[in-house]
């Protein structure tokens, strides 16, 4: 039954993505991307990753929908039709997809108890974290201490993305406000 739910959710995910590509009214696309995030968040819950699901629901379905609506308020509401052929991008996407699927062939089966991660590293972390890090929560210890540099890099990426968005949208929005004030003669 769980497998049935998982496959149905994956099918809905694909259908949502195809619909988002096909529609050219951007508001509907924003709504579809919100649904896409909700679906993947449910998938994460079904696949036993509730922390990732929390993030996906808060960031994907919550904040980014609002951010995209804010962008829509500043730009156009319909997609410009492109006259260029999409054969080469499609080819690149298909080849990348094949390479990614090929890369998963070496991975152990989903939920397998005999993976190296389950047999070596996890047991080691459970055993040694209380002495080495002295943080009761093992996930927190791994994120903030064992892979602290990795987390630092992620924070830098998010910070850079925030600065980029501020540079692009923040200035544009203020300019629009100023033009409106000039137009009203204030």
């Amino acid at each position: 039954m769980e497998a049935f739910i998982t496959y149905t959710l994956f099918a809905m995910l694909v259908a949502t993505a195809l619909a988002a590509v096909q529609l050219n009214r951007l508001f509907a696309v924003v709504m579809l991307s919100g649904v896409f995030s909700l679906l993947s968040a449910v998938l994460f819950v079904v696949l036993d990753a509730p922390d990732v699901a929390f993030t996906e629901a808060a960031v994907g379905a919550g904040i980014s929908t609002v951010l995209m609506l804010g962008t829509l308020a500043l730009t156009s509401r319909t997609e410009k039709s492109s006259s260029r052929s999409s054969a080469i991008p499609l080819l690149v996407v298909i080849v990348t997809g094949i390479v990614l699927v090929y890369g998963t062939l070496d991975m152990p089966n989903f939920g397998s108890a005999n993976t190296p991660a389950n047999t070596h590293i996890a047991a080691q972390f459970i055993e040694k974290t209380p002495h080495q890090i002295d943080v009761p929560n093992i996930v927190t210890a791994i994120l903030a201490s064992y892979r602290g540099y990795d987390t630092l890099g992620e924070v830098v990426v998010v910070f850079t993305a925030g600065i980029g968005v501020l540079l692009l949208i923040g200035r544009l929005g203020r300019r629009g406000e100023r033009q409106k004030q000039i137009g009203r003669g204030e």
Partner: protein
Amino acid sequence: MFVVAAIAVIVAMLLVLVRLYAGPTLYDRVLAVNVFGTHTVLLIGVVGFLTGRPDFLDIALLYALINFVGTIAVLKYFRYRAIGDVSASSVKREKAR
């Protein structure tokens, strides 16, 4: 019983997806996303009981909150054409209408 409930929720999700794709007005789509969020909350709850681990109900509660706030944000965008601080002039314009 939970199996039947799960299938019913999934069928309802599919119907909502059709409405979201077909439109025709923006309000149909907003309502569709809102109902879809409610269905995800239900599905997480049902799957939790189906697998005998209802611990994920907390996540379902969080989804209900996000769904509510998200819908408010979208409707605010409709009303004022802006998400952030609604300037006094646009509120005045709205009242004058």
